[in-house]
């Protein structure tokens, strides 16, 4: 009926009900003023009869109930005062039971009952028991719920709990518990029953209404939680089993969910811990549609917080084997609730893991066990597609990272990578990034090859293209960031022990080589440098540990380096490769491995010749080559000649004259190494410089020819500086007259350049001249040298 009625009708009925209550309350008050008991009872019963309506929704009914409730307070005051009605309370207790209708009768009985207990003329437990029993007569769910909640309310301060006035003698806290439990049980039954009323079409509305009523039921559990004197023993033996029995047996998803939540919230954590088994057993018996995972999650969260609250309680957890029990229960729940979405299972695992990490931070095996269970669950379903589930898995995997700041710990978890395998590629990458970030943040060093192997297994999403990845979809920036992270990671892999380090390098190389052309430019350099670092380390030790295998190891490393860099050719990325070859060549030179260094140079030259086409790149490359070659002193004369000859040759063949010029004068350094054992071929230096001058001249003329005016004299000045440099270094083939003539040449060039107008002062040139003047003035050996130069 109610379901079909409109909201307006309901308003009307409510208004009628309220009017009825007010009307009868008026007469009741008159009778109260006259102390006329008979009339009081008559009108109070009439007033309460308004509550017999079936037409109102719970919310409206509550409104009505509250109005009657206020009136009942007045009535209670009257009942308390025997002088006003002249009847002993025990007689009053009988008298109100004469009312013909049960609902008014029960409200009156509860009201008098509360007075009765207060008067202490009867043991409170007897009265309470009688009241809670008699309330059974009201089987209508809503009316019954409100009646019983009235009973709970008026009896709340009259329970024989410890420390209350009503405790003692035959009234024990057990009676209080018994009373509340019974009221709770009955209320829950009524509450659950609402769903069976009315047609199925209004199911949704019913659920909503039931939700509005749930706190009436839950209130009892709050009371239970607050009763003074319920100790662990009583809770374990009586309270919890009874409550759980009701929860399990009511077979209603709404009630089960809400009540489990209530239980977890209202009772102390310590009790939960001690009764974990019972609690979890109940969880596994809930209806399949109940969201057990939230319940369990809440439980675990609370326990985790409890564990975190004080280290003193941790031993309790151990004592009750909390982990094993939780783990078992979760397993069962997941097994039995087949409909539970994967995200639910994952949430559970996350909670369990959080719990484990907080309570048993030292038990890595537990963590691994959780992950293992997770793997089993994940394997049972097709590839994860639910993004929420994915998030949970990420959370699951992140938790150990956060807890153990040392990533190494996570690496020992054998199930960790197996869980990762179930992520989709995107998430896998996110996870891999998290791992790397964690390493960076904690500055933890991974120092064995095995761990490196595991680590790379974990982050393989970043290392190589996984099957089916659509390369084009990748965001360029993301990709770069990822690869930069990998590059940074490589530097974190370190071990003092060269042998182990070598293994690490092998492992890293193995993984990186699978990365494909896009990744190699990012990943190869750190690897190369890492290896070069090892080389230098070995070389530094080489003096001390004189062993056959040191060079052998070195050779091996260089071999790897060579192969590694070679891989870049597939990208192709010749500039980078060239730089790396040069680095290696230098390292090899430091190790006195001439053939190796020569080989690297060869590679570099080949690259230069075959791959580097861009003129700018060529310029840079030449300078690099020259710079490196200059520093290397391992080559024998022949090799060195070959190489320098090549370098000079390349220099002269550059496209632009200025570039040629600069490269050539740079080559001059190849013949004059400024250290005691260095080669000092002054003649060839001069040759180079002259050649540079010629080129500069040619360049100047070309400019003249094309633009009508010659360009700046920069090149000449630069060459002048080279002259001065070698002059100062004591190259016998550079004479002051050479410098003198060069200065004059520059001066003339500058004049002709700007015609007959002002002399364009070149800052570079002037500062060079200033330098010469300065040297002259300074005197001494250097000053003498400069003496012959006239400015």
């Amino acid at each position, binding site marked *: 009926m109610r379901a079909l009625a409109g909201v307006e009708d309901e308003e009307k009925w409510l208004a009628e009900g309220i009017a009825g209550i007010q009307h009868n309350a008026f007469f009741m008050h008159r009778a109260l003023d006259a102390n006329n008991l008979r009339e009081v009872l008559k009108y109070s019963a009439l007033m309460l009869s308004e509550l*017999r309506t079936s037409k109102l929704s719970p919310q409206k009914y509550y409104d009505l109930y509250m109005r009657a409730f206020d009136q009942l307070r007045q009535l209670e005051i009257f009942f308390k005062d025997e002088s006003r009605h002249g009847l002993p309370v025990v007689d009053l207790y*009988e008298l109100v*039971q*004469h009312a*013909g*209708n*049960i*609902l008014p*009768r029960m409200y009156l009985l509860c009201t008098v009952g509360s007075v009765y207990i207060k008067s202490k003329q009867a043991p409170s437990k007897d009265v309470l028991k009688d009241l809670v*029993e*008699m309330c*059974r*007569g*009201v*089987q*209508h*769910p809503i*009316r*019954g719920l409100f009646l019983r909640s009235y009973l709970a309310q008026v009896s709340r301060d009259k329970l024989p709990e410890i420390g209350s006035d009503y405790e003692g003698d035959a009234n024990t806290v057990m009676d209080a518990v018994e009373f509340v439990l019974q009221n709770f049980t009955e209320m829950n*039954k009524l509450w659950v*029953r609402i769903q*069976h*009323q009315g047609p199925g079409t209004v199911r949704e509305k019913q659920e909503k209404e039931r939700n509005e009523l749930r706190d009436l039921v839950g209130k009892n559990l709050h009371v239970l939680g607050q009763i003074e004197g319920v100790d662990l023993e009583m809770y374990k033996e009586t309270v919890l089993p009874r409550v759980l029995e009701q929860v399990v047996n009511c077979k209603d998803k709404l009630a089960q969910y809400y009540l489990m939540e209530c239980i977890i919230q209202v009772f102390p954590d310590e009790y939960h811990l001690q009764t974990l088994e019972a609690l979890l057993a109940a969880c596994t018996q809930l209806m399949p549609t109940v969201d057990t995972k939230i319940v369990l999650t809440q439980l675990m969260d609370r326990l985790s917080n409890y564990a975190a609250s004080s280290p003193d309680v941790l031993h309790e957890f151990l004592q009750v084997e909390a982990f094993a029990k939780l783990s078992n229960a979760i397993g069962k729940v997941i097994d039995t609730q087949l409909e539970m979405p994967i995200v639910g299972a994952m949430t559970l695992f996350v909670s369990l893991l959080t719990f484990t990490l907080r309570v048993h931070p030292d038990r890595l095996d537990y963590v691994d066990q959780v992950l293992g269970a997770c793997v089993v669950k994940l394997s049972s379903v097709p590839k994860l597609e639910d993004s929420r589930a994915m998030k949970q898995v990420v959370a699951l995997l992140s938790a150990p990272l956060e807890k153990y700041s040392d990533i190494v710990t996570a690496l020992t978890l054998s199930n960790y990578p197996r869980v990762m395998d179930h992520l989709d590629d995107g998430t896998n990458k996110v996870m891999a990034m998290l791992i790397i970030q964690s390493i960076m943040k904690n500055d933890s060093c991974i120092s064995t090859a095995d761990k490196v192997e595991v680590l790379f297994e974990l982050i393989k999403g970043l290392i190589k293209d996984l099957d089916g990845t659509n390369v084009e979809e990748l965001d360029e920036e993301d990709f770069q960031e990822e690869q930069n992270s990998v590059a940074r990671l490589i530097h974190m892999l370190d071990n003092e022990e060269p042998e182990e380090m070598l293994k690490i390098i092998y492992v890293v190389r193995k993984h990186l080589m699978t990365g494909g052309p896009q990744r190699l430019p990012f990943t190869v350099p750190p690897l190369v440098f890492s290896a070069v670092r090892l080389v230098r380390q070995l070389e530094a030790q080489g003096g001390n540990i004189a062993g056959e295998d040191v060079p052998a190891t070195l050779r091996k490393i260089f071999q790897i380096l060579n192969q590694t860099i070679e891989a870049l050719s597939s990208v192709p990325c010749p500039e980078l490769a060239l730089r790396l070859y040069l680095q290696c060549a230098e390292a090899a030179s430091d190790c006195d491995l001439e053939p190796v260094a020569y080989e690297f140079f060869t590679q570099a030259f080949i690259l230069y010749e075959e791959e580097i086409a861009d003129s700018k790149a060529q310029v840079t490359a030449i300078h690099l080559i020259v710079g490196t070659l200059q520093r290397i002193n391992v080559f024998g004369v022949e090799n060195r000649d070959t190489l320098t000859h090549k370098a000079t040759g390349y220099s002269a063949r550059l496209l632009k004259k200025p570039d040629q010029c600069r490269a050539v004068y740079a080559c001059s350094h190849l013949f004059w190494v400024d250290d005691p054992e260095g080669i000092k071929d002054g003649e060839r230096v001069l040759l180079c410089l002259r050649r540079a001058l010629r080129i500069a001249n040619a360049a100047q003329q070309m400019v003249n020819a094309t633009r009508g005016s010659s360009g700046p004299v920069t090149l000449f000045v630069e060459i002048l500086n080279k002259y001065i440099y070698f002059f100062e270094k004591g190259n016998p083939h550079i004479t002051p007259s050479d410098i003198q003539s060069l200065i004059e040449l520059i001066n003339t060039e500058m004049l002709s350049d700007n015609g007959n107008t002002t002399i364009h002062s070149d800052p570079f040139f002037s500062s060079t001249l200033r330098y010469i003047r300065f040297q002259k003035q300074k005197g001494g050996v250097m000053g003498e040298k400069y003496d012959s130069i006239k400015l």
Partner: protein
Amino acid sequence: MNFLLGAFKPACNISITFTDGKNRKQVPIKKDNGQIVMNPLFQSQETIAGKIHIDPYQGKKVEHNGVKVELLGQIEMYFDRGNFYDFTSLVRELDVPGEIYERKTYPFEFSSVEMPYETYNGVNVRLRYVLKVTVTRGYAGSIVEYQDFVVRNYVPPPPINNSIKMEVGIEDCLHIEFEYNKSKYHLKDVILGKIYFLLVRIKIKNMDLEIRRRESTGAGANTHVETETLAKFELMDGAPVRGESIPVRVFLTPYDLTPTHTNINNKFSVKYYLNLVLVDEEDRRYFKQQEITLYRLKEETS
């Protein structure tokens, strides 16, 4: 007018007083005209004694052929109005024929009167006790005065008082088991019990316990049966589910009940029933009636 009135007025005023009239308990009795009057209460084997005053009106004398007082126990059937049946009749002659000039008082006493039946006021039948004073006159008609009194008899609690327990039901529809703690209740008793629902397939709206009185009068083909519902007490509100057990606690005090009377002088019987009624949402009634015996237990106080 005054003369005329005077002519029909009885010549004297007769009043009856009981010996312990001041202290004796009075109980209300409903008269024919609906008025409630208080009458003294007696029980069987009591001595009924008192005084009768005959007070002639001013200046008149009453000639009579004798004065007597009778104690009558009468059963009156309403459908046979006016026809009293006296099951008890005791007579005391108070005066020999003569004349009364002034107020005259006669003491009387019926000692240890056997009054086996209780006063009863039913729908179709009345059982009453009355003192009848007759001043017999020859020609002017006798002067008669009545005084009702009430008789209630108390019995000890019955030695055997079994509970009533029964399982009833409609197949595949409703099965209940009910239990009342006794089969015999005294008039101030409390009916305790419970209703246990074994099977509920109908939508019950509420459940009441009715107390019904069945009064049968006459005998054979002339038997009249009248049933009244004296009490309707709601036991349950709403629909229970299987396994629910509903407590019963009904105080009998508020109801106007009498003891069960079985075959009173072959004239009538009064029986009481507890009628358990379940009403479903379509207002269909399901009920089960059980007889109980009511008896009057001596009250300790008052």
